[in-house]
């Protein structure tokens, strides 16, 4: 059979078996049967991910400590950070939804940045640090649970809702949050999972 001749790959969405084909930067491979994207090599994936995760961690602090929006109403001012919204939800007895917002807008994005920094650091110094494979696996599973871009849309919707009743002022936190959002989107689009796993396999042997 052809099993030992050429390396094979399978489509994760329809299980079609194919011979592994070489694709270069800027190209995208699709499954011929179900059209799922099979691979899209990214140039300098490791360097980008490492640098971006550091940037993200730096931006994470002001994005969460500085006020995102503040509201002026009849001379009174109220500032809101991401965390203060969570506290308010908790205080109204809705601890479940408070926990959900805490996880998806704060904890998971932070964990993801730490995990990807750890993995890209390990691969950059060419040493398999402990639990690197677990870290990358957890990152892959958590990726969709970090919802910074949805939160950003939430900020816009709140802004428009409040605009005609009160003065809404952008806080420093908002600019840092936008920066953090762009960094995390850039990480998702620059991380080449296939390349990372092959790099890990190479270090394992």
């Amino acid at each position, binding site marked *: 059979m052809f099993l030992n001749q050429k390396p094979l790959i399978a489509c994760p969405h329809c299980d079609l078996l194919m011979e592994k084909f070489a694709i270069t930067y800027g190209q995208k491979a699709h499954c011929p049967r179900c059209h799922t994207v099979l691979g899209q090599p990214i140039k300098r994936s490791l360097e980008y991910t490492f640098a971006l995760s550091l940037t993200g961690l730096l931006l994470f602090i002001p994005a969460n400590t500085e006020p995102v929006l503040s509201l002026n109403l009849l001379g009174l001012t109220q500032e809101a950070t991401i965390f203060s919204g969570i506290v308010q939800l908790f205080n109204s007895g809705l601890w479940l939804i408070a926990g959900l917002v805490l996880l998806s807008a704060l904890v998971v994005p932070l964990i993801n940045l730490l995990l990807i920094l750890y993995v890209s650091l390990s691969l950059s110094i060419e040493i398999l640090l402990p639990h690197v494979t677990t870290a990358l696996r957890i990152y892959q599973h958590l990726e*969709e649970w970090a919802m910074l871009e949805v939160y950003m849309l939430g900020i816009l919707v709140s802004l*428009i809702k*409040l605009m005609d009743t009160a003065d809404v002022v952008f806080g420093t936190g908002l600019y840092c949050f936008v920066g953090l959002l762009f960094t995390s989107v850039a990480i998702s689009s620059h991380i080449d999972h296939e390349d990372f796993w092959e790099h890990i396999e190479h270090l394992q042997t």
Partner: protein
Amino acid sequence: MSQITAKQMGMTLCHDCKKLIAASAIESRDHYCPRCGAALHMRIPNSLVKTWSFLITAIILYFPANFLPIMTVEKLGSVTSDTIMSGVISLVQHGMWGIAAVVFIASVLVPLLKMISIALILISIQFQLQMSAKQRTVIYQVVAFVGRWSMLDVFVIALLVALVEFKKIATITAEPGATFFGIVVVLTMIAATTLDPRLIWDNRAES
């Protein structure tokens, strides 16, 4: 080798690192991927049962999520409670069509279409309905991609309760409907991850 699947050749793809592994490794001693350490399965175990249970729970909770108020606005003594739909309607009444459309799509249309789509895929697999497998895969991918955007309303509430906190002049508080709504979004997201899209194609190969 146009239509041969990995399963037919006795191989399986690791769920996590996408390494192709001979299935004999699954049945014998190693149940774990040699490269990443993930548990190996030919298909996600009990995929249909798990997906159905998350989906049915989501459908049941979809009712309180929509009928219970998600937040209460207290403005100079007058108190109004908003459900998801009444929030959209009041945006329309204020002439904010664009934002009303965004909220309507994210909070009403997406969860509904998502639950219908997952149910349709599950039914088509179980009853081996003759439907385009490629189209169903695309539906699956769209469903898996858009699901998280339904969290929009939850985040809006989280921001509004923190911002509009002016004691007697104006206060916004969150209501239990928001909790149900958040749970529905999470359940449908989990349902999308427990559904193994390869089952759509397995059926076709057998029939």
